[in-house]
């Protein structure tokens, strides 16, 4: 990515962060690293939360988006409640997820495949249907991994805990009208 393009990417990102309640506090980050130390997934991330803000300031946000980082966030909100500057960092992560999805950079992330399968399932039924969600997820990632889930699926099945026939909500048509009224492309 050219320096101009990365600068634009950073500015576009900040515009969305500022729309979050207290999003403007991202400018008050003191790089203390409390967020990274609190994050249960940061050990597996190529860029931890503190480094994400450092990369943004250095005009290198594209590196974060191209790395394995954003979709590892598990939404536990530990960073958010501990940040001494009051930055709602979990919500900042959501903005990064949007940006990745929008730029088509999330192709290989399992977390992105899961989110996409989830949204498709909910759009079809008005509710989540777990069996369908997992089928979609494994088909779009590594289908052979579904085999390892068979023993658990059987244990759930014999206890009546496997949803075989998902039901649609009665007001699905109305819900879809509401969804269509929101102009939003994927990732936004």
């Amino acid at each position, binding site marked *: 990515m050219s320096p101009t393009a990365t600068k634009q990417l950073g500015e576009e990102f900040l515009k969305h962060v500022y*729309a979050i309640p207290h999003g403007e506090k991202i400018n008050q980050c003191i790089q203390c690293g409390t967020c990274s130390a609190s994050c249960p*997934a940061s050990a597996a991330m190529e860029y931890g939360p503190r480094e994400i803000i450092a990369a943004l300031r250095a005009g290198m946000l594209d590196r974060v988006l191209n790395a394995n980082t954003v979709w590892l966030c598990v939404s536990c909100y530990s960073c958010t409640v501990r940040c001494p500057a009051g930055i709602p960092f979990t919500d900042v992560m959501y903005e990064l997820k949007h940006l990745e999805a929008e730029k088509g950079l999330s192709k290989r992330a399992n977390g992105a495949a899961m989110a996409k399968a989830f949204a498709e399932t909910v759009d079809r039924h008005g509710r*989540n249907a777990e069996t369908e969600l997992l089928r979609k997820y494994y088909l779009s990632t590594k289908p052979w991994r579904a085999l390892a889930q068979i023993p658990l699926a059987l244990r759930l099945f014999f206890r009546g805990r496997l949803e075989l026939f998902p039901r649609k909500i009665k007001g699905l048509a109305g819900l879809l009208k509401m969804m269509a009224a929101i102009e939003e492309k*994927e990732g936004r």
Partner: protein
Amino acid sequence: MIRTTPQTYSYFPGCSLMVTNRAYDVSTRSAARALGIEMVELDDWNCCGATAYMPIREKRSFVLSARNLAIAEKHGHELATVCNACFVVLRKTNKYMAENAKLRDEVRGALRAGGMDYGGTVRVRHFLEILVKDLGEEAVRRAVTRPLTGLKVACYSGCQLSRPFDDVDHPEFPEVMGRLVGWLGAEVVPFPLSAKCCGGMSMTTRPEIGRALSGKILRVARERGADCIATACPLCQINLEAYQGPITAAVGASCEIPVLYFTQLMGWAFGLDSKELALGDSLTPVEALLTEKVGG
């Protein structure tokens, strides 16, 4: 019999409670009934959006939650849920709609396109909070007919009961569930990991992360001498109960321990039977433990 005035709440079970975690739904309804709390299921509710819809289409995820809030507003009661994810997402929608006028107008415009509207007046509550803060100690203790004496419980609240919104409980060291479980007569073991993350969806998308995180919770609960772990979230419950074999292999220490919903513990203390609490759905030997330690 309980002599408190019945309190009425709209009830949002959430998708997970329909089939996979129906024991949470069954035991919640049973426990509420025993306490004289009326839980009226929200009419034709839809998915709250959870944490997974939001990154795909953010505004639409607010519309999903707002439709539920709109239905609840019509009913005129507070909206109760037992799922931590639903609890946070519904509250987040309330907060964003209150603080961001542009978003509020867009979401309300969308609701109107489907013949609904939401004025922002619904208070979203977790059932645990209702029990401890609205109902209180005396009413709960009065309903106990089979005290859980001698049962050692690790109370695991999960992330989203008290994060990011910390008005219900402490964001790092929650204590609301422990108070309730204590009133039931059980021994609450000190459990500092009560609000640590179980791994959430990473148990499926990145199993090595999920197993490490859930593994720590299971291992420490055992080390602290707990007989079981009580949960307040359907995703935490399945992560902690369904993968104990692979987690034990990954962690290298035994992680086997019964895991149940706090509502099942409560129902058992109220003298309800296995069926009323759907104990047969458990993947861990919950009923055997309760029968052995507390009595059937």
